[in-house]
């Protein structure tokens, strides 16, 4: 009996020893060299794995950062400049500084402004609605309101407002990863430059219909009157297909366009309520 146990122990130990030797040589033969800096860079990245950089997760971005010659075009929108400059130190390269960005919804067509003209009773998905038809209102460009964007946001920064039926971006949580930009079938999200104090000025409309049609379907639609385009002192506004667009990189937040807009389709957010001339000057300077 004891002999059987003894043989068993000996044979298993031998098997283990032989396997260990084989494994050692195999491991030596097929060793993959991995740059240790990849781990260092990955440790700096926020580990959100959101894909906002354009790569499949933070590890993938780290690999590409180490591999690349320069840091041009490789940027983690979640970590921002702080993280990128740390990584630049690790890699000994020049960091590319980018303005922090924030997602805004280019539609303000709540039920108050945009009357519902038909009723949709199918699957509650924006992609499904827009594959089928223009949506529940007369405006075929605006928000469908089924919340596909809220489902893809990894940072809990998007929520549907039950009163307006539109998604609301939580400025503090938004990292400008761009997931909502891809998810919205109407392309309503835009990543704009983030100003101090979360100040924002943008045309909250994507309606390319002619003025009368657009205003019939939505009270706050851009009617393409070009008034803002004419008044803008910084040439930040362009007109295309009866629709104004404010370039956030050129805009200096002077707010002249806001007062000029006849349909209130240009939104100003984060500004002091009462605006005086001196305040405006202070913002410009």
């Amino acid at each position, binding site marked *: 009996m004891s002999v059987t146990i003894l043989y068993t122990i000996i044979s298993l130990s031998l098997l283990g020893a032989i396997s260990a030797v084989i494994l050692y040589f195999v491991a030596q033969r097929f060793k993959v060299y991995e740059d240790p800096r990849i781990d260092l860079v990955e440790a700096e990245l926020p580990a959100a794995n959101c894909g906002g950089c354009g790569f499949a997760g933070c590890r993938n971005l780290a690999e590409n950062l180490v591999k690349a010659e320069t840091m041009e075009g490789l940027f983690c929108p979640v970590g921002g400049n702080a993280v990128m400059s740390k990584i630049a130190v690790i890699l000994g390269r020049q960091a590319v500084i980018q303005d922090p960005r924030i997602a805004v919804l280019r539609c303000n067509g709540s039920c108050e402004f945009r009357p519902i*003209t038909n009723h949709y*009773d*199918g*699957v509650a998905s924006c*992609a*499904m609605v827009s*594959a*089928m*038809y*223009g949506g529940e209102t007369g405006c075929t460009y605006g928000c469908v309101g089924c919340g596909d964007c809220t489902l893809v946001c990894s940072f809990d920064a998007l929520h549907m407002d039950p009163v307006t039926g539109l998604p609301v971006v939580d400025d503090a949580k938004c990292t400008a990863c761009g997931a909502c930009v891809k998810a919205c079938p109407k392309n309503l999200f835009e990543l704009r430059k983030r100003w101090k104090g979360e100040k924002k000025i943008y045309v909250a409309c994507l309606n390319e219909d002619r003025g009368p049609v657009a205003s019939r379907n939505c009270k706050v639609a851009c009617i393409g009157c070009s008034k803002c385009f004419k008044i803008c002192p910084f040439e930040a506004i362009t007109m295309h297909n009866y629709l104004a667009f404010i370039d956030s990189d050129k805009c200096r937040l002077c707010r002249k366009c806001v007062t000029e807009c006849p349909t209130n389709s240009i939104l100003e957010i984060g500004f002091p309520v009462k605006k005086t001339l001196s305040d405006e000057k202070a913002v410009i300077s």
Partner: protein
Amino acid sequence: MLKTFTKGGIHPPDRKLTAHTCIQSLPLPATAIIPVSQHLGAPAIPVVAKGDYVKTGQLIAKGNGFVSSNVHASVSGNVAKIEDVTDISGYRRQAIVINVAGDDWLESIVRNEFLDREIKLTGEEILKKIADSGIVGLGGATFPTQVKISVPRGKKVDCLVINGVECEPYLTSDHRLMLEKGEEILVGVELLKRAMDVKIAHIGIENNKPDAIRLMRKLTVSHKGIEIHALKVKYPQGGEKQLIKAILNREVLSGGLPVDVGVVVFNVGTAFAVYEAVQKNKPLFERIVTITGKSVRQPANYRVRIGTPISSLIQASGGIPEDTGKIISGGPMMGKALINADVPVMKGSSGILLIPSGESARNKMQPCVRCGKCVSVCPMGLEPYLLMPLTEQKNFDRLEVEHVMDCMECGSCSYTCPADRPLLDYIRLGKSNVGKIIRSRKK
């Protein structure tokens, strides 16, 4: 034993309320809204300007490219405006709006009921006439007919299949057309045979239209090479692949076209339009539309000018019943709910259906019980229960492998699902995404 297709299929209740109602002409509308995109392919380009006077039958928009189709004025009067108008698709698209003044037809159109049997033109001349007259497939797919006739090089067509199946419940426009214009349809088929240089044509009619089968059989005695096939009633027999399988027992493979098995399919409505275009010089500017529904006061079959607002059809048949939940353009299986009743009748509108709200409402979705009913009814042999979650997971590679592009959106799966799952909605979404991926790969 009657013929039918083998794979899948369902038996929704018939409800052909208007099968014995004669085709009536609808009075002209006050304004006609004629979309320039009533066919598959590139939208036509308007050739008239605001303020121009147009006669009935005059060309107002010219086909743009190979897969496109001409559009003709369906009324006479002045062009009021050319602007974007909401059409059946639910999107705003370009349309030509004409203020109707009298009914002044082009002189070249022969306006009598005389049955012109004599075929004087050659195949090529017929093809040109069909292309000029803006004829598209009137079964609902609205594929330009001249493109169908121009068979790609290297492919040989040995017979035509004419679709008189009308498998959708409620609709009777093809049925009435066969009863009232049977001889004209047969001449149209002869013209199509000449244009495509084939000797045999098979007309398939479902067995729930015995009067049409009897009449067409009697008429075909004098037409050599046209055969009538009575088919067992089963939805979706009007799908071209199903019809070919039912009549000829030929199988169109996945991703293939009927041309691959030597067949081209036309609708009886298309054959009639071909007759009118070639023998009477009349472009396609009117069609038969069934207006029906359980609570509609006078369900009817109307001969309607293209561009007539659907609201005037509803008015003519006694107004919108109070219990209406949805107004559907097309049949109950494949039709599309309208977002308002002012959209115009287009070349592909075979019927207007007013469904009571009790029937039109969707039931609450339940979890899949894996009963496999959707698999057994799918006429294309797909697995709808699987395609739905694959779309939800955005697994488009796998969707393509599962042949999602073969789906013809007949809706049999959603109809039969005991858990009321919106299978077709998801499959359609998956199809559009996979289609985009395939197109981007080709570029």
